[in-house]
């Protein structure tokens, strides 16, 4: 099976002891959840997948994406998107510029902008293109971040406690949106969370660490 995101015998140590071991495959459109309290190395694993592992750690094993070994590729060539719990919208860009930043280069300026505007209205944020990201509510910011990742056309999606900052109502709403859009695009999703409800809602395989 070559489709999806495969972690092949991944072992990460911090020089003295093992931090995390992972060996699994996430099929396109499926969600794999890694559960556990903070400090068990969940985010470390995501850093390894995005190619931004801190040099204090050493890792062995491979990351395969749709059959391609991306282990030694730099982050910007991996096509792996990530969402964090905090708003990481670039504060100096408008909402529209944030979205355009993630889009593939090329094309006419007007066409790119039309794509941005259309995408915004699709998730109910019509007319938000020129807005200052700092003026968005938590739910709006979460939706813009999701949209930005999707517009960059990733081949896999990582969620790092992506919903834990949202209040209960928004949380369900955004979570459903993320899972649906990922499934529509056939993206393998690797989610780390310490929240059991997130894990249940994802519906996929759950690995529990640190117990």
């Amino acid at each position, binding site marked *: 099976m070559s489709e999806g995101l495969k972690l092949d015998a991944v072992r990460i140590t911090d020089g003295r002891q093992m931090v995390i071991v992972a060996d699994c495959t996430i099929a396109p459109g499926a969600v794999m959840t890694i559960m556990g309290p903070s400090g068990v190395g969940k985010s470390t694993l995501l850093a390894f997948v995005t*190619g931004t592992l801190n040099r204090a750690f050493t890792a062995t094993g491979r990351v395969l994406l749709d059959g391609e070994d991306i282990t030694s590729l*730099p*982050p910007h060539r991996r096509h792996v998107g990530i969402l964090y719990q905090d708003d990481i919208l670039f504060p100096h860009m408008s909402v529209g510029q944030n979205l355009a930043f*993630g889009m593939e280069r090329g094309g006419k300026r007007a066409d790119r902008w039309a794509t941005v505007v259309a995408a915004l209205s699709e998730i109910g944020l019509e007319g938000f293109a020129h807005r200052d990201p*700092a003026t968005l509510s938590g739910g709006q910011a979460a939706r813009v971040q999701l949209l930005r990742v999707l517009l960059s056309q990733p081949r896999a999606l990582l969620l790092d406690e992506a919903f834990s900052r949202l209040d209960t109502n928004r949380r369900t709403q955004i979570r459903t949106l993320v899972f649906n859009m990922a499934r529509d695009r056939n993206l393998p999703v690797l989610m780390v969370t310490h929240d059991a409800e997130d894990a249940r809602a994802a519906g996929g395989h759950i690995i529990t660490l640190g117990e």
Partner: protein
Amino acid sequence: MLRHVPLVTLVVMIGPVVAGLWGALIPALGHLPGAGLTGPSFEAIRALFDWPGLERALRLSVSTGVLATVLSLLIVVLVTAGWSGTRTFALLQRVLAPILSVPHAAAAFGVAFLIAPSGWLARLASPWLTGWDRPPDLLIIQDPAGLAMTAGLVTKEVPFLLLMTLAALGQVQQEQRLKTARTLGYDRVTGWLKCVFPAVYRQIRLPVYVVLAYSMSVVDVAMILGPTRPPSLSVQIVKWMGDPDLSMRLVAAAGALLQLALVIGALGFWRLGEIGFAWLGRIWIEAGQRGGLDPVLRIGGICMGILSAMATLLALLGLFVWSISGFWGFPNAFPEGFTLRNWERHGPGTLEAAAETFLVAGAATGLALVLVLGCLEAEHRSGRTLTTRGLWLLYLPLLVPQTAFLPGLQNLLLSVGADVGRGPVILAHLVFVLPYVFLSLGDSWRAWDPRNAVVAGTLGAAPWRVFWQVRLPMLLRPILTAVAVGMAVSVGQYLPTLLIGGGRVATLTTEAVALASGGDRRAIGVYSLMQTLAALLPFALAILVPAMAWRNRRGLHV
């Protein structure tokens, strides 16, 4: 490419210092082929020790340097201990921060205009209080003990140390420590001194050393406020360097080495003092006094802080009043009339000097910024952060006295046939601008949330695109502040401009200091104000530009 930037930076910063010390060592041993002198001989060293003023010059350097450092540190410690976190403290901080950028020479002139026998203070108090109807025959400025010079130094070093202390406070959990001490029954000042100060001092130790080394070897302030017969060792070295008799350069080189030894010795004694003080402090801590003297210390601290700030503000105001004064007879508190004539007369000259000043400052700061950004980006990408040893290297050009290595650097430049002038001056300024730009920008750069880089990277942005399109714009404010700091440092440089420029690079600072001996207060007022404005302008831009560029971006407002 980027990997090599830290090494290049190190060479650019430390290279001139090492070369300059080498360039002092050889002539000190009688060898200066450029002047037709060949060694080795101990003639120069003997001549140095035969100079009748040596003992007093040495004593002066040590006493003014140590006293200025102790006083500045004392004021900063008492003000912070008694008042940090209060509205008064915030106000004082806001007044002192811009004073930091006022060039030493301008502050020194202002202080001179204030405290001289015919200065503003004497005029304000005469004749109703003092009975003077002409300036009293007192040696207030250029006093043999160097007290005026010490005062001039203190007004500038207090804002510097205060700013360093503020930066340190953020890292030592002051609130928590202080709260714990207070719940144990300690009064504010005592609690701060016993629980916060030891941690703060560890952070500001290097800046304190810089103040000590600087104060012991300062030239421009000493030429304006310091005694003349004999002057401090640094001023005498510069005099020897300018002597038409080239063999005096050998004596200057020997003096430069003595200056270095003096500063190293003083730093050593200061370190011993620290150990002794820490020992006494531990006894004091164990004794458990809760702070009976607190009210006195608190009031005393704020009075000294306000005095220091007021003195500088009044000094700057004095420069301004002189620059627009018509006839101003003693003991009138104000001139009989105001006029723009002084500005008309000296304005064109200052503009020419201002152009040179900005050219040198802009080039030095631009180079420094490129190197510092390169170092910080290399640090970010490799994940290796600056070690304590690296920090010492950064402080090295600020710890080695300018008079110890700049004369040697000039000798070296002349002996290899390199021309003195603007280019070498820019490189010499770079030695001092670099550390300040690095120190100013480093913390904000490292405090930037690295997840921004991860997100941008996973969106497909290559590292340089992240650098240009995400990190630089987000850090515009601290970058421009660092540029302003670098510009202010360059604008204020006297000795490197004079020595490495061979007297041919005329900046606002060299022109202003050159006016010192003439005593034309109106000309000095105009030049010093222009010098101050040149240092302040970049700070104003560093506030204005981001405010305008990000006026619609709330996430980047302070």
